[in-house]
């Protein structure tokens, strides 16, 4: 009885010793790794909290939001569309039976959809910006010729903004604070030209009506038209780039579809060598598309923080 109890004790001690050595090993390794990572973060001055906060408004997400806004699609619907496209591409890839094609189609769905729709988004944004400059002319005429106040003129424009500006200018129709409505228009537009024009209206609206009319006549409309001319030229360049990329992708897709219809070729692409060839061809293709993007680049614009502008404008009166 006493011996069996001592054996049990020995087993318990052995188990505890083994468990504690495993805990020491795993825990020690984790501590060493954590210290190493913390040291590396300290050396590289990486603020993890700031990095996590920045992730919420990363440039990638902002670009996605810009495309969705330009196409007039709500953010949630855009996310559903993106997810659905990737799922469809993966399903199609699984049907081919070649796993590398599945991966390739998934990559194409992730990057290709935005690329495919970005031309349409740019065209739509250009149309909206052109319409906005037109509405600025109407605003000027309403104040200068119709003798309307800024509030009334903006509200009437908000009630009848035209087909392209319904979503962006609808806040003006609801009345209330002009400043808040202009800020809302700027935020909704996600267009650098409209954001800048909204910023100018925010700063110029508190002066006399004549001064505001002069600002629209002398500054907003001439500079806005110059900006539109640059945008139109960029749009032509972008269309050229996209046409060439589509032609290249179609040719590649057509040739690959033709090749895998032949049994012997299909069998080759299911081997390791075939997968390597497919990987190499895809890499060269993507590198060429990237090179095309570098050759035909479009000018970038400064993005404005319209709510911050409004805050500073209000603060300047206090």
């Amino acid at each position, binding site marked *: 009885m006493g011996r069996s109890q001592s054996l049990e004790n020995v087993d318990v001690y052995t188990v505890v010793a083994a468990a504690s050595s495993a805990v020491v090993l795993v825990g020690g390794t984790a501590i060493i790794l954590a210290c190493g990572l913390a040291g590396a973060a300290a050396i590289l001055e990486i603020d993890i909290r700031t990095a996590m906060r920045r992730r919420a408004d990363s440039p990638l997400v902002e670009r996605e939001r810009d495309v969705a806004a330009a196409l007039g699609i709500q953010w949630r619907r855009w996310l559903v569309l993106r997810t659905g496209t990737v799922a469809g591409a993966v399903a199609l890839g699984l049907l081919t039976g070649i796993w590398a094609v599945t991966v390739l189609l998934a990559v194409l769905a992730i990057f290709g959809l935005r690329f495919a729709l970005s031309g349409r988004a740019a065209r739509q944004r250009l149309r909206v910006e052109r319409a906005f400059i037109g509405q600025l002319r109407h605003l000027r005429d309403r104040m200068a010729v119709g003798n309307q106040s800024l509030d009334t003129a903006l509200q009437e424009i908000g009630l009848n903004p035209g087909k392209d500006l319904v979503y962006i200018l609808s806040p003006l129709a609801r009345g209330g604070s002009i400043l808040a409505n202009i800020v809302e228009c700027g935020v909704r537009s996600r267009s650098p030209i409209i954001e800048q024009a909204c910023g100018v209206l925010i700063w110029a609206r508190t*002066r006399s009506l004549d001064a505001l009319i002069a600002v629209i006549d002398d500054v907003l409309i001439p500079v806005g038209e110059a900006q539109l*001319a640059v945008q139109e030229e960029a749009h032509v*360049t972008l269309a050229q780039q996209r046409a*060439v990329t589509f032609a290249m992708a179609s040719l*590649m897709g057509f040739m690959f579809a033709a090749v895998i219809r032949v049994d012997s070729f299909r069998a080759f692409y299911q081997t390791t060598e075939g997968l390597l*060839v497919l990987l*190499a061809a895809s890499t060269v293709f993507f590198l*060429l598309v990237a090179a095309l993007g570098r050759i035909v680049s479009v000018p970038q614009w400064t993005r404005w923080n319209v709510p911050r502008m409004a805050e500073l404008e209000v603060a300047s009166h206090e």
Partner: protein
Amino acid sequence: MSDLLVYSAAALAVLTIWMLGLVRLGVFTSDDVRAFRRIAQLRGFAPPRSRLEKAARQLPWLRTLQENLDLERMLALSGRGWSPLGFLGRSVAVSLATLAAGLGTIALVHEVRGEWTVTYWGALLAAVCALLAMLVQLRSRARSAQVRTSRTLEDLLMPVAILTDSRGLQLQDAVRLLSRCVTDSALENLLDRQGWKRLVPETEASTQELYRSIGSAYGLPRLTQIADAQDAAYVGVPEREVYTRLAEAVYRERLAEARAQAARAKVLVTLPVAAMLLPLLLLLGAPALHAITSGLQGG
């Protein structure tokens, strides 16, 4: 004998570094010259050009090399608060960590496979690459910040015209205020948070002089143009007109650049299209070649 040569070379190198350090610290310079240099530095006078700078003015490739290795300038341009020594320390730390990781991996592979698949030179090469990558990354960040700052300056001219004319703000106040309203913080870091003090000595200069100095030191010609425009405003041209004209000129320039680039792209775009033959040939040729070689081996 070979050991003696190595020790002699090492001793010579240490002695040279020691002497260079003494020269750099001004041990051999007379007190008067050192005092004069100190006063010149405090008053913000331009320091005399070094021999390297004089040589760089003659040779463009040396100037490019000097600019790419000028850590102080690149750190200032990229908006990093690090000192050159601090940056070097971090880069060396990253490089040594890469070397340690490389050596550890090589030892692990040796332990598992029982043979040396990669020599220690591989780890050393990776460490040197890590050091170069840090430098290239800094250069890329500096260039990107320079381009973004210049673009922001161009795009804020229209609001500047309104703020200086309708709201009666001074140019420097308008620019600082607007730099806070941009989503990109490069211009805000430079002007509003006074990042310019890193390369431009603080003096009692006017806004125009200050903007010209910053424009020259940070490679921002647009800032110099804004200073010139303010000169025009001082002699009686309305501020709204001055800055609106400058904004229009900027956008005309952008339009001309866009048109020139589009024309250039029409020719350059044929290169990637022609290169598309390569993946097409790979897709078609590889299975065909495989089938032929299999057939030959089978026959």
